[in-house]
């Protein structure tokens, strides 16, 4: 993939309502994620390019185009976290009922198999189970907000 192609993808994400885009081609994977609007201002989306070695287990230090230092530090930190993604389009609910406590809060310990939220679409209720054990370090979607297929909902620190 050419650098100009990466730039086009970044522009596409910037000008759309897409929060995150994953693109995989010929062993390379690019993740473009918009900065959290609630976090400190970051005008450009954070871009991370990760080589996906087929045989070598060691993570390759691939060139990371268009990344400022702060974003790079942030993505390096986030790279250690497990991303729990939505399996379908819908609306995310953090509690089983409107007047109930949320399933989990930031800082909570979770086990693989614990229900952490519900994604609902057309009254199809999908209780999302955490697929790793660890600690919830961030919840990226507010209660009752729409989510897209593949959108990251939680960051889990498996070593937390």
């Amino acid at each position, binding site marked *: 993939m050419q650098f100009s192609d990466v730039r086009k993808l970044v522009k596409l994400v910037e000008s759309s309502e897409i929060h995150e885009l994953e693109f995989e081609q010929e062993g390379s994977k690019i993740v473009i994620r918009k900065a959290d609007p609630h976090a400190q201002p970051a005008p450009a989306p954070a871009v991370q390019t990760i080589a996906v070695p087929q045989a070598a287990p060691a993570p390759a230090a691939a060139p990371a185009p268009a990344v400022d230092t702060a974003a790079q530090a942030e993505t390096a930190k986030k790279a250690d976290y497990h991303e729990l993604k939505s399996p379908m*389009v819908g609306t995310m609910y953090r509690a089983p*009922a*409107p007047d109930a406590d949320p399933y989990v809060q930031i800082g909570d310990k979770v086990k693989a198999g614990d229900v952490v939220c519900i994604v*609902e*679409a*057309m*009254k199809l*209720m999908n209780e999302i189970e955490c697929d790793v054990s660890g600690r919830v370090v961030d919840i990226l979607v507010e209660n*009752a907000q*729409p989510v897209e297929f593949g959108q990251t909902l939680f960051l889990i620190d498996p070593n937390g």
Partner: protein
Amino acid sequence: MYTGMQPDTIDPSRLIAVLKPLCGGVRLIHVEETESTNRTLMDMAKAGAGHLTTLVADRQTHGRGRHRRNWASPVGGLYMSVLLKLSRDNPPVTLIPLAVGLALRKAITDEARQRGGDLEVTLKWPNDLITENGKLAGILCETIDTDDEWLIVAGIGVNIRPLSAETRRLVAADVTSLLEESDVDWTRSGLIVAFLRHLTEVIKDWEDTPEQLRREWTAASNMMDHLVTVKTGKGTIEGKAIELTEQGALRLRTEHGPVEINSAEGIEVHE
């Protein structure tokens, strides 16, 4: 037939014999009581139950609606859940709740006609069955996804005879029942067979011709071109219902532009 307080007896082996040629692989389990047919069947699904495994209960101790709302489940109603195991290489799975509503509507109107009655039932998005007197039946679909397929438990609750005054007070919404709407000899057995037959057909439509399924749903609904008020987790939206999206969401035209609804606390359809 409903004589006194007792509904008809369910004989799974007799119903299976009728259903086998229509819905291959169907398995029917009947219990007197369970907490929730959805919850029990989901546990069975996780333990390896097959496609079209069906659980019917005479009563549920904790019948559930959306967001754990209580679903009144006294003896006399039809409470059943069906397990669907569907390949991920299919049209959007979010159309399934609408397909289940369509199948139940067909089952009820077929049964009414066969027994000499006539019953006008409409669908309210995404899958409530209503008449002009209130809600007749509700559906709750729950899912977990695996690597290669969706496991969906489609639960239905049908009010066959009038709910008691006490239950009506608890429900706090307009409700009705099959017997109030059409005084024929409804049986749970007849409804189970008709529902499973139509469910098998609509699932095939979903796989082969999802756009046809959406058209059929739209024709069976009373919503399109009507003003609706939708209560969501974030507030209230008003607009004119225009169409179903490919995913099965309800598209509204509002004064701020088009809006797609995929989750709602309640919907009011205006004249």
